């Protein structure tokens, strides 16, 4: 047992009270002055400093006055399924409207890898959003990092799968794709937002970026199935660009939401 082991034990245990620690730790504490000071310092945290009874009564009164029964939020898997269903249905609507011309020009490896990467990204975002709706949920990937990770990974996949060619009408073709894909992203954003409203969004900017990206990916996916241009720069700029644009708009909406909340709270005070 050394000082490092002691730290490890303290991480795992909710208590730092010496008498409640394992015997080996207590032995180490007898021998090590530094660890003894350290454990003692951590135990200072246990000292209670209670709020005044008046404040407690005031809080209780406020909560009791507005007390009504509420129905708990549905499990995260239902929301995950709802996000996924909205994603698939909107992409399907996009493909139905625009046509699936890209499928005949892409190789099977390109089709599988592109659609697989887009599906996996959408799945990760839907999973994260379903868990962001209730505070204190477990996240496999920190929600703050997820949008940047998804965009980065998709860019790498696209750049690896397709060749960089010289496209004759880069801006004209790109503008056409942007106009075709964006409405489907916007269309998906509405039901996504309606779903999210049922939960508690603690960090509007983080959730905004994720839902914006998921909406943008609807447009990107529809274009990947529709657009027969296989130039990597076209795909990165105009197809993946819609997803990026969605994330930026979502982030901006989140910032605006937070500012509005702060303004409202300041006005109430």
């Amino acid at each position: 047992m050394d000082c490092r082991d002691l730290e490890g034990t303290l991480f795992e245990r909710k208590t730092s009270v010496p008498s409640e620690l394992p015997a080996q730790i207590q032995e180490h504490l007898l021998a090590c002055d530094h660890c003894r000071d350290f454990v003692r310092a951590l135990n200072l945290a246990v000292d209670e400093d209670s709020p005044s009874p008046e404040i407690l009564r005031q809080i209780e009164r406020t909560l009791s006055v507005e007390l009504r029964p509420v129905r708990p939020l549905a499990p995260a898997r239902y929301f995950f399924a709802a996000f996924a269903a909205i994603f698939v249905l909107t992409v399907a609507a996009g493909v139905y409207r625009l046509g699936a011309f890209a499928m005949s020009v892409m190789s099977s490896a390109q089709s599988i890898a592109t659609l697989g990467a887009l599906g996996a990204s959408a799945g990760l975002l839907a999973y994260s959003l379903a868990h962001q709706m209730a505070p204190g949920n477990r996240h496999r990937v920190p929600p703050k990092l997820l949008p940047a990770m998804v965009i980065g990974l998709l860019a790498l996949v696209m750049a690896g799968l397709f060749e960089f060619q010289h496209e004759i009408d880069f801006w004209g073709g790109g503008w056409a794709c942007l106009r075709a894909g964006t409405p489907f992203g916007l269309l998906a954003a509405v039901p996504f937002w309606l779903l999210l409203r049922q939960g508690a969004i603690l960090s509007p900017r983080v959730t905004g970026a994720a839902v914006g990206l998921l909406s943008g990916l609807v447009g990107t996916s529809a274009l990947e199935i529709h657009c027969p241009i296989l130039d990597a720069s076209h795909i990165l700029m105009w197809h993946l660009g819609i997803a990026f644009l969605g994330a930026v708009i979502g982030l901006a909406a989140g910032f605006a939401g937070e500012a509005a909340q702060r303004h409202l709270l300041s006005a109430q005070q």
Partner: protein
Amino acid sequence: MERYQQADPEAPATLVRALSPALLRFFKSQVASRQQADDLLQETWLRIHRVRHTYRPGEPVLPWIYAIARRVRVDGYRRTRRITAHETTVGTLPEPRLRAEPRSHLPEFETLIAPLPEAQREVVTMLKVGGLSLEEVACATSSTAGAVKQKAHRAYHRLRQLLQHHVPQHNAEGRSREEIHGLP
């Protein structure tokens, strides 16, 4: 918490009395004054009340509560920063101390962890004041258990360094360690 969701009239008082002391310590340890900590505590309960439907029965309560408290703290910090940016300082009055004498040679917990970076301070406070496990802290901070463990490890390392600076200074003042500690 489930009784609270079902509008049991006794539930709010039970919850508020059980959780408020730890929440207050959480806010105080994040370098908030007592007045600010009281305000944040009230705001936290209001927010908990508004989003009480998002607690899923059977799941641990503490990560849910602390995730909300953490958010209230961040919002409160941003609001205060915005206001103070527009205020002119006319002088600084010393804050009255709640305790006249520290009970040992060690500084108070809030003072001790004050030099730590915000993220580490938060993790240590949740672990040692809130009594949350590593997993629960990870849930409350939307992080992973590995990342929390790393932050806690860094924080503990830094705390040890701070204590090493503090204790020799104190010993030089002539009090024996045994007299102070009696530990364990």
